[in-house]
């Protein structure tokens, strides 16, 4: 259910069917797993059984002698490479060197004629370890006598994504620290009419994608060629360039379809390892991880948050303070940026005059944490949006009214120094509330919640593209944005088709090949439609400008006399479409015009964030008071997307994100017992299923054309996740009177909370 169609658009703002639907559902779409190079070998990885241990020796001789094995690669074989990588902090060896830092870390790789042979040889590798003390939580990592995970000093990565210092590698287990501060929180809390305060926990979660990590590397004297399931090919290129000490022109990343990312495919993962395998084996090598191995590769940062929020006598939020400790696991990956983002996102989309947020992430001997859909926002929106409801309850206000009264207003600079707010939260919240029948009577045991979030999204604005208009009037877009299911390969041609006035079906997309497609920083932070969309729009217009000049040449008139019309030009009686302009210009029915665009942090993109990603969700749940089980009764998503280039795709992103957020609210959690991840498989790690969704689902879009992107568009696709866990916790409180501050709200946890309440209740 989208807002009314804006009448003037031909292609954009229409729900054209997604480009890749047919090939994907018929199994014809090619993923890296489907690719095979001539002479290709296969790698399998030996993983550490220990969380923290010195590697005393590795004897790979028996494995190397195993029939069918080409070679074994260990941390001792990397001379000649710069084996430590990381776009934020170069702390991650491509294979463990001298020590292991988490159970599951890659210690050696076998390269063989096929996967099974490589696997068989793994157990022939003899590794001797000396176990070290290990830490698993931020609290343990901060202790005086905590063992140090990283002894080295680190270089800060040039592409870390933020301007602040990197804290890692300074003789403690601190990976990154960040804080924001304005006003005077102490004073404000002293003068507050009411304050709520609490400790919250956001669990370790896994961004499950159907496709686990897979890459093929072919390292030769000519350079490094890699096919990978990577979201950000250019970021990976940067890491590989440094591992192999090559110019970027000699590193080529090719990304075909990606089978889902949700954050887990952002930045470099297995590419340096598979490249090192190819380098040593002197042939192309494929490494395909299993889901269980992928779960040992990345996860979300779990977060311990203490937060307090205050209101004045008029119900205006006057202060928020939080201290956050994040568990970043064994390597920094993208967590330094997660720290910065979660710090910012603690403020929520509220105008709060006094703010102090301190955030610190710590290295622990667990799976490295990194990007996760929503990017630090989900971690802090659990406390943030919980406290809005807690505070409303405390002062006897309707939580929805309370939100409306405090939400940032359109154009308000609610976050000092950042872009003024470019969404319409009142409309978002109204729409969500109406969709779930906020004011209608509630059945017994049911509860409702409406919550919202606003994140500083879009990442760094550096994006370029080429739009080629061919002599037959068809068009090729060259884009570094990766299609990972979000629909970019449908949305981008919609924009080109709109601008150039050509049929949508005639616009093709070539993407994510760093040797061919122009630079795009990343496909994340909900930025593609806004940034790459703008680039495609501008490149299309630049092509049109060139074709106007060509048309003047062809028609032997002045450029000023040429008038553009949809799909071509006119000059007096004469009318030419693009095909005619190009063919006549070259005097041959072939050739092309190349439109270009570079977007950088300037002009309308000079203010950061690129846009505020805003959304509201509404839920109604019921609680089985005997078992503690929560059932979703209603769900509404409201994406504040400026303009939906493709409404169906925008809604699809919202329901996907909300479902993922629901998973965190209800049952998703990676569990460590001692040093081992004990539910590291999808048999034991409970993912959301279709049957978990309520029967009543409403998807709404708010389209006020208030974004900086094409036609007023701005990004979506993450925001509906952020508020879901808090929303569920708030609804449970309304249904049962118990406040649960630790996600997920599993049946057992809810049952225990109800039991405690009843015990306390009977004592009174």
């Amino acid at each position: 259910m989208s807002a009314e169609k804006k009448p003037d658009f031909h292609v954009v703002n229409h729900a054209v069917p997604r480009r890749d639907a047919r090939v994907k559902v018929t199994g014809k779409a090619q993923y890296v797993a489907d690719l095979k190079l001539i002479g290709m070998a296969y790698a399998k990885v030996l993983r550490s059984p220990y969380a923290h241990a010195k590697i005393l020796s590795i004897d790979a001789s028996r494995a190397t002698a195993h029939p069918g094995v080409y070679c074994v690669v260990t941390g001792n074989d990397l001379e000649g490479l710069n084996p430590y990588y990381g776009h934020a902090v170069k702390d991650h060896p491509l294979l463990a060197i001298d020590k292991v830092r988490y159970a599951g870390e890659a210690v050696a790789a076998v390269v063989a004629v096929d996967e099974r042979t490589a696997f068989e040889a793994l157990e022939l590798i003899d590794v001797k370890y000396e176990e070290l003390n290990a830490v698993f939580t931020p609290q343990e990592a901060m202790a005086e006598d905590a063992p140090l995970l990283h002894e080295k000093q680190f270089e800060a990565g040039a592409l870390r994504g933020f301007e602040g210092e990197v804290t890692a590698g300074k003789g403690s287990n601190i990976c990154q620290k960040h804080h924001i501060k304005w006003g005077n929180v102490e004073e404000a809390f002293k003068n507050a009419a009411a304050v709520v305060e609490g400790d919250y926990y956001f669990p370790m979660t896994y961004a499950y994608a159907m496709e686990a990590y897979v890459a093929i590397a072919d390292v030769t004297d000519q350079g490094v060629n890699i096919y990978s399931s990577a979201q950000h090919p250019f970021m990976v290129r940067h890491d590989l360039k440094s591992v192999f000490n090559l110019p970027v022109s000699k590193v080529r990343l090719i990304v075909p379809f990606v089978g889902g990312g949700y954050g887990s495919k952002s930045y470099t993962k297995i590419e340096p390892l598979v490249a090192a395998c190819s380098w040593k084996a002197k042939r192309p090598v494929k490494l395909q991880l299993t889901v269980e191995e992928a779960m040992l590769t990345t996860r979300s940062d779990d977060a311990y948050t203490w937060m307090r929020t205050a209101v004045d006598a008029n119900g205006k939020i006057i202060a928020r303070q939080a201290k956050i400790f994040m568990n970043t696991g064994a390597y920094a990956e993208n967590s330094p940026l997660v720290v910065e983002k979660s710090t910012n996102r603690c403020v929520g989309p509220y105008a709060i005059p006094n703010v102090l947020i301190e955030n610190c992430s710590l290295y622990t001997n667990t799976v490295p944490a990194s990007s996760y859909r929503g990017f630090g926002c989900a971690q802090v929106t659990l406390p943030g949006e919980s406290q809005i409801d807690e505070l409303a309850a405390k002062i006897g206000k309707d939580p929805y009214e309370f939100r409306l009264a405090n939400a940032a207003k359109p154009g308000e600079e609610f976050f000092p120094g950042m872009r003024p707010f470019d969404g319409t939260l009142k409309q978002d919240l109204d729409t969500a509330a109406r969709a779930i029948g906020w004011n209608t009577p509630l059945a017994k045991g049911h509860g409702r919640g409406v919550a919202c979030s606003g994140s500083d999204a879009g990442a760094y604005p550096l994006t370029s593209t080429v739009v080629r208009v061919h002599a037959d009037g068809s068009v090729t877009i060259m884009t570094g944005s990766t299609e990972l299911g979000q629909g970019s390969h449908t949305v981008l041609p919609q924009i080109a088709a709109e601008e150039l006035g050509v049929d949508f079906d005639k616009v093709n997309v070539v993407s994510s090949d760093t040797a061919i497609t122009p630079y795009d920083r990343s496909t994340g932070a909900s930025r593609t439609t806004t940034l790459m969309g703008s680039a495609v729009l501008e490149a299309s217009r630049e092509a049109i400008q060139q074709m106007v000049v060509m048309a003047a040449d062809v028609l032997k008139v002045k450029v000023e006399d040429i008038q553009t019309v949809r799909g071509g030009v006119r000059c007096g009686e004469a009318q030419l479409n693009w095909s005619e302009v190009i063919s006549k210009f070259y005097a041959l029915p072939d050739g092309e015009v190349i439109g270009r665009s570079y977007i950088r942090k300037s002009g309308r993109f000079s203010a950061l964030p690129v846009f505020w990603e805003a959304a509201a969700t509404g839920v109604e749940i019921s609680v089985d008071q005997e078992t503690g089980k929560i059932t979703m009764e209603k769900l509404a998503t409201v994406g504040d997307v400026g303009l939906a280039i493709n409404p169906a795709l925008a809604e699809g992103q919202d329901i996907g994100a909300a479902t993922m957020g629901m998973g965190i609210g209800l049952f998703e959690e990676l569990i460590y017992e001692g040093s081992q991840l004990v539910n590291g498989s999808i048999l034991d790690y409970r993912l959301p299923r279709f049957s978990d969704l309520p029967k009543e689902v409403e998807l709404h879009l708010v389209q006020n054309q208030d974004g900086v992107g094409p036609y007023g568009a701005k990004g979506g696709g993450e925001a509906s996740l952020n508020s879901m866990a808090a929303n569920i916790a708030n609804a449970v409180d309304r249904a049962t009177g118990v406040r649960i501050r630790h996600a997920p709200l599993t049946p057992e946890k809810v049952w225990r909370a109800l039991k405690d309440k009843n015990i306390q209740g009977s004592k009174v």
Partner: protein
Amino acid sequence: MMPLRRFAMHQPKSVAEASQMLAEFGEKGRLYAGGTELLLAMKHDLLRYEHLIDVKTIPGLNKIELKNGTLNIGGAATHRAIEHSPAVKENLPVLAQMENNVANVRVRASGTLGGNLCFAEPHSDPAALLLALGAKAHLQAKSVRRTVTIDKLITGSYETSLGADELLEGIEIPLAGKSQRAAYVKFQLKERPTLGLALVLDVDGDNIKKAKAVVGSVSPMPTESDKANGLLTGSRAQVEKQLLDAAGALAQAADPVDDLEGGADYKRHLIGVFLKRAFIKALA
């Protein structure tokens, strides 16, 4: 999950031949039906076998039939076949309904009842219900046959009394008359049940003459308690009052363990909740 290690597949034509193969391969061989347990465990490298003996090639081992007032289900019948069998749906709807809720449709389509029971994974729906229904298992080694009750077949977590060369040929379930009321209810969040509760009652008007309650999945084996069964007999009104005590007795017998599915106290509590639900459902 890893690539499967190399193994040879064998296709016996009779139970005796399969048994012969088991004897011949010893520790290196294992029976293989739907593979939903076995291949998963092999892909996780938890089990290794060089020889798999496919019971699906044995003629007749998947049949489902009524015989002399009993329902007979072959060891290689799939969950899905049982779920959709007219004989089962008509004569023992509680079994069809339980099967309908085992796993997901893909697992039900290849997974067999025999594989479920003989793997003896503690979170088994069929084991609990079949124990409550008084089912018997027919076992065969070469030419020697024996029959045991379910509690004598499943002896522990992943443990059975099957001999090294023995197969489960089939399950025989007595069909009680019109006086039988049965229900199976379960609590499940993940892939396996947290708790399953089977209740089989023999009623005469408002009087419950006989009762059998079995709780599964909370401990290594499905459990019943004579004391609980006693408390579940008598007039309906009286039994209703005794439900909590019966649940307490059952919980004591089951002695649930703390694990990823939940704390022992939570599971003890759930036994009470689900015994009540099973009772209401059985008598509905």
